[in-house]
Structure formats: structure tokens, C-alpha cells
């Protein structure tokens, strides 16, 4: 590992890629605005401001990507770095969304207060449920935890889908957002909040993984029995991992809810969990940039190719309708051919190319991504 | 009969065997000696293909074993009696033996011979393997390797955890059936090894360091002290 000295030069060198990306993202709304003549501040129509134009479109797209990326990064922390498989991650996503939605729409609280309360309550609820679920089944073999999370998430999904209070399957719209954060009138603020959340989550996860705690996470992933034999309370570490992951997923759910101004039971559906799983693996399990690339790449691809129609013999496939199928196929191909994902495989190729000393070769790919930022 | 020629075996990242060579003459009882963790079990597993070597060559009766799967190697006439017996506890003695047969009627042909060697098994025939004592399980494990036509037996630490009386019985049985078979033995217990084997190979820290006739080894205090620790 590195020596303790952190010089400015070194920090800049290892993080240059991230820095450039963030700077680009900060400027993006304005870049698009310049290129297309649209305004990132919206257009005034009478007394209101509405969001129209390419700049607004791209901001919305990217906010969704930020939410999705945070969600997938949280899944990667749990699965990619700690080796805990969950098939119910959407539970936390939905909890975040519904907590926010219900506090805003179903209470008479001041919207700003409701927002603050939503953040706190989401952290508590997601953390608590992660803790309970973990205590119940993390002691058992991994497959039991996976089954348990699947069952719980399904139950909640079905239940919420029939809950008359929240309009059951149709869900409900959010119309009480304070103006400063309402994406319909001021998307730029939400955009920067989303960007901040994304960068914060990225750095936070990297910090944890590179810390002693993170080393234990990875030891658990490699061989839990050995980790326990060495003396670590693996249960506690796994609990920490899933609690953090759950909280982050809840945050992503809130962001998603605010952006779309609609909350529905599909936020609890298994398709979000599947997204997280697929994107983590396709991007690269146990890497830092993998989930980002997986999530952003897949979502952007899906959005931009949505209306393409592929002729197939006697029928034709509209990409948008069959996206899950296509994604599934990509997933299977990746698992078989590039099990380490795009970023993971890239890292290994780079390693072999650079011919690092044998010592570095035995460490997991996660640690080698330090320089990739 | 079996020639292991300078094999290197890795388990994960760990280089367990380096250039290990073992020669097992036909009809002999050859023993692999060495301290704990020296690589004796790994050598057997490499022969059987359970931990295939990355380099080096293994030939059995003139045929190369490299690249074959364990079940193919076993089918060539090699019987394996692993450490800790590995009998099927939920299956009966009869089922344990039945499953070991490779050709039709293998069990019927050899059952008398097996009962002759291990009379206890006759009495326990219908009981689940888990009900047997340690010594009886060891007998079952060895008997299992005698059901099909196996010319070479790989036996890993048969005396481990057994009472001296049982060990005596086991040794007598091994001596008897090895008259028309070849045996490659791994044995920590030097007393047992010296009385049973006629050839030895010493494995030390992943290397084969010495080999020869057992008759010579028993007098070589220096060698014994150096590689086998407390004799």
C-alpha cells in the first residue's frame, strides 16, 4: 500500500480522471445549452418557468443516471466488495421513494421540513430494515440471505401494490415539492444535488473499501471462513456493509422520486434489483468505476436506442420493449466471457501489460483500481 | 508402474509441489514420507487429477495421465482412499461398495475376497456408513478400492486416528491384498510405514528429496531425523 504522505501532486494524479469528469459534468448543462441554444434555467411562460430544450432533457437524463449509479454502487459495495448477494435491494430504493412521497403528499408538513424529515427517516428506515434482515439471515449460508431478501422484497411489492392508501398499483404523484428543488421549474439545482450525491457516494465507498474495514469486507468475500478463523466478527462487518448499502439505495430512491415526481410500487419490483445486479456485473464486480460505467452505459444506451426497431424474420423487436431481454443477454455473455466485467477485465489486461511485480498480481482487482480513480 | 516426473502443482496462488518426482515400481508398496504439510496428499491428488499439475508428466502403465479428468484416471485402474476416509455416511456399506464397481458384477466377484480381508464388513453390510466406527470406516474405504479391478491403490494416511489394534489389522489386510497389486501409501506414522512399505520417497516442503528401499532407510538415522522430524 502507499506510504502515508499525501501530496497535492499525488492526489491530483490519481484522481485526475475523476476530477475531469466532475468538472465536465458541472459544466454540462451549460455546454449543451451553448451547443443547442436551449437554456438550463428553463423558459419563462407567463408567470411560471418550465423546462424545455436539450439542456433540460440532458439534465433530467443525467439526474436519473446519478440516482441509478448511486443505487448500483451501493449494490456493488455489498455484493462486489463484501460478497453478499441480495435479491431484494429494490426494497431500500422503494423505501426511500415512498418515505419521501408520503411525507410530502400525505402530511400537512411544510414541504421543506418534509424534505429534511424524509432524508432522516429514510436513513433510519433503510438502516433498520437492513439491520433486521441481516440479523435474521446473514448468519446462514449466502443463498439463504438471497432467498430471504427476494421473499421480503416481493412481499412488500405486492403489499404496496394493493395498498389503497397510496393508490395501490398506480402510485401517486408528488406536487408539493418546494420550488427550489422542483425539477419542473428549477432542474439545475436538482442536477447539482444529484451530482453531489453521486460524487459523494463514489468517494465514500472508495474511502471505506480502502480502509481496514474495507479490507475485511474483501477478506469476507474471498473466504469468509478464513476471515472468521483469523478472528473477525464477519457478521458485524456484513451488517455494516448492507446497512450502508441500504441507506445509499434509499437516497437513490429519493432522488429518483423527486426527479420523476411520481412514486409507484414498481420501485419495489425485482427489476430494479436485477438492474443493480446486472449493471454491477457488466461494469465490473468489486471495482470502483465498474458500477458507474455499467449503470450509466446501460441506461444511456437504453434511452438513446429506445425507439430503434430490429427486424427479426417474421417479427420485429422494438428495443425499448425488449430492453430487459437484451440486457439479460448482455449479462449472460458478460458472465461467461468477461466475468470481471468491462472495467475488471480492462484492469487485468492493463496489469498483465504493465508486468507489475508478483506481489501486486495477487491482490484483488478492487485495490488496483486506485489509480483509475 | 507409475512414474511422476518433476511435477509442479499449484493450489490457487500457492506453489505446493516443485519438481516432485516419484517412481512406484510394480507390485511394491511405496510410501510417501514427510512432515505435515510437505505436500504428500497433494502429490496423490495430482496423480488422480484432483489438483492437476501445471507442469511435469505423470505416466501410469505407460499411459500419460496429464490432462485427464479424475474419473477417467480412476477408470484406468487406480483406486483412491483419501484422508479421513470419505465414505458416504448416508449410504449403507453395501451401497458404498456397489457404487465403486465399474464393470458389471464387480462386487459379486470380489465380495468374498473383501469379506475375507475385512470380516467385520459382513456383519455391518446393511448399516449406514455413518454408524461405523473409525476403524470400520477405514476398512470400508479400502474395501471400496478393491471392488473394481484396480492395479494401483493410492491410500492416504490410513492409520490416522485409529487405535493400535485396528492399525495392526489394517496393516495385515494391506499386506495381503497388495500381493497382486501396487500400493502408493502416504503415512505419517513411521512405524507403520517402515513395516509395510518396501520403497520410500521423502517429500520435504514441496520437493522430493530422497528415495530408495525401505530396508536402507530404517538404518539411516540422519535422514530420518532431518526430514521426518521426531522419529
Amino acid at each position, binding site marked *: 500500500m502507499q506510504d502515508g504522505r499525501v501530496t497535492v501532486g499525488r492526489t491530483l494524479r490519481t484522481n485526475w480522471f475523476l476530477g475531469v469528469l466532475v468538472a465536465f459534468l458541472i459544466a454540462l448543462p451549460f455546454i449543451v445549452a451553448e451547443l443547442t441554444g436551449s437554456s438550463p434555467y428553463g423558459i419563462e411562460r407567463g408567470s411560471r418557468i418550465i423546462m424545455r430544450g436539450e439542456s433540460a432533457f440532458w439534465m433530467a437524463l443525467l439526474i436519473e443516471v446519478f440516482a441509478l449509479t448511486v443505487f448500483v454502487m451501493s449494490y456493488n459495495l455489498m455484493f462486489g466488495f463484501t460478497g453478499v448477494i441480495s435479491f431484494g435491494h429494490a426494497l431500500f430504493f422503494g423505501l426511500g421513494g415512498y418515505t419521501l412521497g408520503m411525507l410530502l403528499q400525505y402530511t400537512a408538513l411544510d414541504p421543506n421540513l418534509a424534505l429534511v424529515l424524509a432524508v432522516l427517516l429514510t436513513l433510519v428506515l433503510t438502516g433498520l430494515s437492513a439491520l433486521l434482515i441481516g440479523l435474521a439471515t446473514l448468519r446462514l449460508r449466502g443463498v439463504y440471505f438471497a*432467498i430471504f431478501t427476494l421473499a421480503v422484497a416481493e412481499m412488500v411489492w405486492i403489499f404496496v401494490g394493493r395498498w389503497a392508501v397510496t393508490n395501490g398499483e398506480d402510485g401517486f404523484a408528488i406536487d408539493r415539492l418546494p420550488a427550489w428543488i422542483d425539477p419542473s421549474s428549477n432542474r439545475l439545482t436538482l442536477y447539482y444535488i444529484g451530482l453531489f450525491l453521486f460524487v459523494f457516494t463514489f468517494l465514500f465507498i472508495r474511502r471505506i473499501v480502502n480502509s481496514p474495514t474495507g479490507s475485511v469486507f474483501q477478506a469476507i468475500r474471498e473466504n469468509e471462513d478464513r476471515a472468521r478463523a483469523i478472528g473477525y466478527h464477519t457478521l458485524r462487518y456484513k451488517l455494516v456493509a448492507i446497512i450502508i448499502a441500504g441507506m445509499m439505495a434509499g437516497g437513490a430512491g429519493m432522488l429518483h422520486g423527486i426527479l420523476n415526481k411520481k412514486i409507484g410500487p414498481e420501485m419495489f419490483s425485482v427489476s430494479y434489483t436485477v438492474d443493480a445486479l446486472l449493471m454491477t456485473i457488466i461494469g465490473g464486480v468489486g471495482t470502483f468505476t465498474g458500477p458507474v460505467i455499467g449503470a450509466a452505459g446501460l441506461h444511456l444506451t437504453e434511452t438513446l436506442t429506445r425507439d430503434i426497431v430490429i427486424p427479426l424474420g417474421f417479427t420485429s423487436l422494438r428495443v425499448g420493449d425488449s430492453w430487459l431481454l437484451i440486457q439479460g443477454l448482455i449479462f*449472460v455473455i458478460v458472465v461467461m466471457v468477461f466475468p470481471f466485467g468491462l472495467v475488471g477485465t480492462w484492469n487485468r489486461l492493463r496489469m498483465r501489460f504493465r508486468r507489475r511485480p508478483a506481489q501486486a498480481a495477487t491482490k484483488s482487482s478492487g485495490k488496483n483500481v486506485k489509480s483509475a480513480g | 508402474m507409475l512414474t511422476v516426473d518433476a511435477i509442479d502443482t499449484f493450489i490457487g496462488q500457492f506453489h505446493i509441489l516443485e519438481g516432485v518426482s516419484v517412481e512406484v515400481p510394480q507390485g511394491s508398496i511405496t510410501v510417501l514420507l514427510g512432515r505435515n504439510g510437505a505436500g504428500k496428499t497433494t502429490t496423490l491428488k495430482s496423480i488422480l487429477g484432483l489438483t492437476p499439475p501445471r507442469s511435469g508428466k505423470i505416466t501410469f502403465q505407460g499411459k500419460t495421465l496429464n490432462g485427464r479428468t*479424475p474419473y477417467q484416471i480412476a477408470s484406468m485402474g487406480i483406486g483412491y482412499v483419501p484422508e479421513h476416509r*470419505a465414505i458416504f455416511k448416508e449410504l449403507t456399506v453395501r451401497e458404498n461398495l*456397489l457404487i465403486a464397481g465399474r464393470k458389471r458384477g464387480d462386487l459379486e466377484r470380489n465380495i468374498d475376497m473383501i469379506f475375507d480381508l475385512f470380516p467385520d464388513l459382513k456383519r455391518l453390510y446393511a448399516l449406514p456408513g455413518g454408524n461405523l466406527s473409525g476403524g470400520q470406516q477405514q476398512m470400508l474405504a479400502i474395501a471400496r478400492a478393491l471392488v473394481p479391478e484396480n492395479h494401483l491403490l493410492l491410500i492416504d494416511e490410513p492409520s490416522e486416528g485409529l487405535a493400535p489394534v485396528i492399525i495392526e489389522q489394517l496393516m495385515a489386510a494391506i499386506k495381503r491384498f497388495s500381493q497382486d497389486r501396487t500400493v502408493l501409501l502416504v503415512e505419517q506414522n513411521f512405524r507403520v510405514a517402515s513395516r509395510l512399505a518396501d520403497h520410500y520417497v521423502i517429500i520435504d516442503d514441496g520437493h522430493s528429496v530422497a528415495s530408495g528401499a525401505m530396508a536402507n532407510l530404517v538404518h539411516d538415522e540422519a535422514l530420518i531425523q532431518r526430514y521426518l522430524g521426531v522419529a
Partner: protein
Amino acid sequence: MNLRKALGNRGSTWLLIAGIFIAILAFSLFSAGGNMGTFAITLLSGLLRGMLLFLVAAGLSLIFGLMDILNFAQGAFFMVGAYLAYDVSHPSGGALTAGAAIPDPNLRFIVGLVLAVIVGGALGFVLERGLLRPLYKRPLFQLVLTFGVSIIMLEGIKAIWGGTPYIWTERLVAQDAQFFVFGQQFSVYRLVIIVVGFALMAGVALLLRRTRIGIIIRAGVQDAEMVNALGINVRAVFTLVFVIGCALAALGGGVAAPFLGATLSMGNTFLLASIAAIVLGGLGSYEGTAIASLLVGLGWATMEQFSVRPEVGTVVASITPMLMLVVILLLKPSGLFGEER
């Protein structure tokens, strides 16, 4: 079968099973309000449900015991079976019209079942050989892979047959024939399934106990590597078991189609219920799976019957399989006959 010995070793387990059984019966009787007809129908429905679960769970259990893989795609195979059986039997509905070649609906149905089994087995073969075999060294990915494949199969079904659920409309001879128990009617078809189901259960049990391949499978469940070292091609056995497991699940779906139709949600529901069954029975134990399937089936049917009451609502029926799974995992995850792995 060493029944007496089994009873001796696990007396407490059998007591527990009896207890659960009686509890379900009692609750069922209570929820039927003492109406013997309703009670009897619920029981029969429960047995029927249990048989269907068994068809899915048997494969799940053996595959898990032998290969340490939880085949999440079992539910999808169940669905494929249902859709295929529906499609062949309803030449005007569905996606294919090949069924029109056969005029008699009963014959069409049989053909549909046969097709379901063949396609299920073939897909299972492709899945095991092509996708799972290369991943034996990485169990984490195997679990994830079967999950991914189940999604692909679901989407594939959706692409071929669309998202709207299919309701069975063809009248089969066995369906029309009814018999009466305590004044309520129950179709002969359902009864046939129950009887055939029991036969199948016994048949597989015999296969496992008496035949050489059965002994190999049971040995493999305990120690697959040793079986390999004995000169038996364990990988081929894996493939065989996997293929049979998938084919059985598809058969289950086909058999269920006449009264459940073909929907996109049945796969997941039956998967979770089957997982509940194999966890309750004890992962890797065939006897456990068989008994647990019946218990779960009975419990499920009872809960459905109970949720007919207005104050309970249909939500309870929908979440019963998951609820059972959660409860079992909380109380006794090793199951009735499971070893403490």
C-alpha cells in the same frame, strides 16, 4: 426403505411434521366454518398444489443437493411448460397455430405436455452444459447466472406470447367429469393429478433407493468429488439431474395450465413457494422435499381459502408463499430433514 430406522433416528422430526399437519388441518377446518364440503375441497386443493410444487421442488432440491446450485430458473421452466401446453391446446389463442392439426382437445393437451417436457429438458441441457458447467469453480456467479437466466426466460416468454395472461378455455374430458365430496364438486382431472403425483413421488424415491444411478445421485449429494474419484463421470450425472429437474418443472406447468392458465407471474410465485418447500424439507433431502411440498401446498390452499373472508383480503393469499418462506427461514432454516451444513 429403512423406514423404521429413519423413524427411530428422527422421531422428533416426524412429530414436528405431524404437528404442522394437524395445525394446518385445524386452521382449515376453522376457516371453513365447519363446512365439511369446503374443508374437503381445501384439502384436495392443497394436495393438488402440493403436487405441482413437488414437480418444481424435486428438481430444485436434487440440483441443489448435488450441484450446490439454486436453480432460480425453475420457475421460468414451470411457466414455459404452461405456455406451451396452453399454446398447443388453443390453436386460435397463443402464438403458434400448430395445434390446429389435432382435432381432439384432449389429444392436443397430451401433445402439449409432451412438448413441454421435451422443450424443458432441452433448454435445461443447454443451460447446464453451456452456461453452468464452465462456472463450476465460481458458485457466486452460478447463483447469479440462474437468476439472470430466469429473467431472460421471462422476457423471452413475454416477447413471444405477450404480457396478457391466458385463461384456459378448452374443455378437457377429465375436467368436465366431476365427482362430489360432501356436496362440493371437484374435477376428476385434479384428482388424477394428485394420484399421478403420488405415483411420481414414490417412483422417484424408488429410483433413488434401488437403482445404481439413484445411489450415485445420493452419493453425489454427499460428496461429489469422491464419486468422481471412484471413476464415475459426475459431470454427466449433474447434467442428467439438471435436465430431469427442468423437464419436471415444465411438466408441472403444463399440468397446471388447465386450471391456472398461463400468466407471467406464476413462475415467480411457484418458484418462491418451491423454495419454501425445499427449505422446509431441508436442502438436499428428497424425502424432506416431498413431505414439505405437501405441507406447503396445504398451507397455501388453506390461506387462500381463509383470505376469501372479506376482512382478510386477497393480499394475504398472494403473499402466502413468501410469508411461509420468511417464517421458515426465521424459525428453522436447516429444515426438517436437513443436515446442519
